[in-house]
């Protein structure tokens, strides 16, 4: 189970909120349309936009790639909020045939591929921690975990990976 959970590569994180005009403008800087369907992610290259709420996205991108500045420039005076949260949370990747089952030890969502397809993302809970959960492959999930909850989440997943005899 040592390899089940790994750290995601370092990335910049921003929470994007705003009125429609700002979101339109942001898409230009992003280079792709913000996903408008609930709980879906959209990506281009190493830039990802994860729908978190009807006017809320988590933007993941390369470290120091200047995306935030470009987004601010693009949105200008259109009402919006762009807040950096790169250090608020850490990314974990849980991968393997047993990933879905291990997450289901603490996550009450239906994680079957039909109910939670590749590309779906949402905030949810894992036992007593809130997590961001993003399915990046049939057997791979990306977790966003608040920094101080990482130890708990990793310990929980390790305990959850115990397979009864």
């Amino acid at each position, binding site marked *: 189970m040592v390899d089940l959970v790994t750290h995601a590569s370092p990335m910049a994180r921003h929470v994007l*909120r705003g009125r429609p005009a700002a979101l339109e403008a942001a898409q230009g800087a992003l280079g792709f349309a913000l996903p408008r369907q609930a709980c879906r992610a959209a990506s281009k290259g190493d830039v990802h936009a994860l729908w978190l709420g009807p006017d809320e996205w988590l933007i993941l991108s390369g470290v120091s790639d200047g995306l935030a500045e470009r987004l601010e420039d693009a949105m200008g005076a259109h009402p*919006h909020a762009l807040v950096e949260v790169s*250090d608020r949370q850490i990314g974990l990747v849980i991968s393997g045939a047993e990933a879905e089952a291990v997450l289901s030890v603490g*996550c009450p969502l239906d994680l079957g591929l039909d109910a939670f397809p590749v590309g779906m993302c949402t905030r949810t809970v894992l036992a007593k921690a809130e997590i961001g959960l993003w399915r990046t492959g049939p057997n791979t999930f990306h977790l966003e975990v608040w920094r*101080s909850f990482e130890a708990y989440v990793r*310990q929980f997943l390790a305990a959850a990976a115990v397979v009864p*005899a």
Partner: protein
Amino acid sequence: MSKTLRTPAGGSVNRVKTIKFSFDGKTYQGLEGDTLASALLANGIRVMGRSFKYHRARGVLGAGSEEPNALVAVRRDKARIAPNLRATQVELYDGLVAESQNRWPSLNFDVGAVLSLLSPFIPAGFYYKTFMWPKSAWDKLYEPNIRAAAGLGHAPTEADPDSYLNRFAHCEVLIIGAGPAGLAAALAASEGGERVILVDEQCELGGSLLSATDAVIDGQSGRAWRDAVVAKLAANPKVTLMTRANAFGYFAHNMIGVAERLSEHQASPAKGAPRERLWQIRAREVVLATGAIERPLVFPDNDRPGIILADSARTYLNRYGVLPGKRVVVATGHDEAYRAALDLHKAGVTIAAIADARPNPKGPLVEAARAAGLPIKTGYAITGTKGTLGVAEARLSPILGAGRVGPPEIVACDSVLMSGGFTPSVHLFSQSRGKVVWDETLETYLPGASAEAERSAGACRGQFGLAKALADGFAAGSDAARLTVKRDFVVQATEGDPKGVVGALPHDRGNGAKAFIDWQNDVTTKDLKLAVREGFQSIEHIKRYTTTGMATDQGKTSNLNALGVISDALDRPIPQIGLTTFRMPYTPVTFGVLAGMARGDLFDPVRTTPIHDWAVEQGAVFEDVSLWKRARFFPQGREDMEAAVRRECLAVRSHCGIFDASTLGKIEVVGPDAAEFMNRFYINAWTKLGVGKCRYGIVCREDGFVTDDGVVGRMSQDRFHVTTTTGGAPRVLAMMEDYLQTEWPDLDVWLTSTTEQFAVIALQGPKARDILSGLVEGIDLSPEALAHMSLVEGKICGVPTRLFRVSFTGELGFEINVPSQHGRKVWEAIWAAGQPHGLVPYGTETMHVLRAEKGFIIVGQETDGTATPDDVGLTWAVGKAKPDYVGKRSLARPAMAAPDRKQLVGLLTKDPHIVLEEGAQVVLTPGQKAPMALVGHVTSSYHSAVLGRSIALAMVSGGRARIGETVYIPMPGSDIAVDVTSPVFYDPEGVRVNG
């Protein structure tokens, strides 16, 4: 009695694998596949428990989870003792150690059995009636003694060393019960390719098919059909089969709680192997195929060991190869007992008599018994038994009508089989909030309209018999999966009349004879009749008064008979008496499985800051603040807390201290309407706060009471950096979102938690500026450029920072926000730079003392949810010109300005060495007797090193007007005289923040 009741062949036990186990210290042998109950029976052990109230010797009554008598404790070691397990469900393993319960000194000689002789004096409601007077005796005499005598089994005294797992699961169709109906339902439901979960409490799927001998389904024996179906289901990846899984609770919206036993049945579980797992299964549709439980007959002395339910006896014979006895009397009001009699007859058991309470039983099973030459007495009731520690003879009497019986015949026997018919298991249906309805034909309660997306199938809804169960189960599975699959099962099985008898059989015995209704709680017909005579009419009341149906078996074998007896006593039909609601758990579950993984290190998340490890390395002592670990103090050498705090306090006042404030809640308020939002939410005014300036903000709830506070900095025209208390962070953000989303959705402003984006390093003390000066880039720290309550963005140690000049100590102070990943690096750089300046780390305890010396409140310590800003001396913070803010209207209520409100004051003890106790009360005059006239309470109290004396903060009625007065703190033995003072004890002019 012969020692071995094991048949020479038959059953599904493994005849070549013997298993050694012990019961009450004696070693026995069983076979692989046995339960503890079947192995004990095979060894001729009939007494397996003592009853709860009268300590009567009891044998096994059933063969499954309904067992009320054979409750045992299974012990692996001192910490692993599981009490109150049904021996019928305990799977035998090598070395199993089981003990009987509720007896002393031994099972066969139990001193407590004298209670049975006293039983005329222990009627229903005995405790309510007896232990009323004198009132004072309750605490000291009655309750301790009743408690000592009460309870069933003993919990282990050591912590549970085992681990437990949790699991959420989802499926389209969940089927509970894997008897013929459940298996057929799974066959149908799995044809649509959707997810199907089939759970069963037994160690094998199959239910009644596991003990069937004569049934033929689609040309195969029942057992072979079962094997084929299970194999087919197991091969389907969409189907999950669960055994040893107790579906104990039906929760709202088709959430089913299932407790799965994982290693309980293993002789030597692997080290660390989880013991049980709690499943929370959400199903689109549920099929309840929970079967039916055989009803005992109610007759005098019906609880002797050796008296067993007829169908259970069949299970012991056909599944485990164990005979209930060698010479058996069958007492019945139902056809199924004939099936048991025929099977036992075939196995060589003498059927001494079949006493059928029905005048004229008919049907194939009865005819088969006749054809086999079994002695059948129709219109006969069993009216008593005799025997020491087990039945030795039965009394059979002809029923004459009108509740009378004729002279009895005495029939010698070593076992009595009984059957009153079968009661559908509607427990889970009832838990789902479905209402049961009375069926006149079957004389039983059946599931009525569904409250959830579920349907019952098979015997649990009165569809008795193998053919009906299969057909009904398949239809239910098809329906649940939204399919229209059809299948006709070709079934050869002898089916009887489903109707049985309910309530007590007639008898001619005196009042002394006990006819048990509820074996586990020792409730007799007499108790129920007494309750009715005393005026109880509602089943809800009778149940609680007599405790019938309230034991751990929840009346699985007793409820319907109880209703029958009450119905007779009240002369009212059963449906007018009603039925109590079934509660979870269906069968008892352990605390361990409910706690699941939330224990030990995983009980709660332990949140630590980026600087935590440094504090650990320095030997800090930590305290819990909400989920956070915060360094409380940093002892040096052998310092205790008092000494460390004294040293840390003085160091901050004289030189400088460094403090980890990372846990403070932080919220980024961003958008063109940010200032407007802040104006509406906080009591303070924000419009005029300049960019780069800070303000101490206070949040009230709509009722006007202070709920949080913290420094807010204005980063730009449209961006505020808000801080909250450590514990208040989620609450304040939720409250902000509430107002923003639901009251002011038109405001162009958004909120983002940044609590963990930043590590926050507080540097407090006269040397703070000197320490920082060499570390910052592009930041002018001079008082002119960075005045108290202002902020600047720049770099420190090469990383971006939001540098606040603020003070919670009264000293020159800075709070350095840096991205969390750099927190420790920056901390260590400051730490190094501070060495020449006498820098010390300090913890939350010192922080508390330093702020108390300055009269700064802590929300939740000085305030308790009923303090206004004015009560705690913060009127100055209110934006008085604002037309509105959260709490403003409430603060205008007359009571909020009453002069006798509790107000924040300082208290100085006349004796400077006395440190008051926090929470102590304040009175105006000494020497009062309780109840005293209390005028306030101490909220904070410390020894102040810099002042060389104790200080305290208190909330005192009309306190500000009492400054200068002497009041008293009543303590055991004495009243402590204190002077009421201003809450600001140190540097009242506030010059020290300027360094």
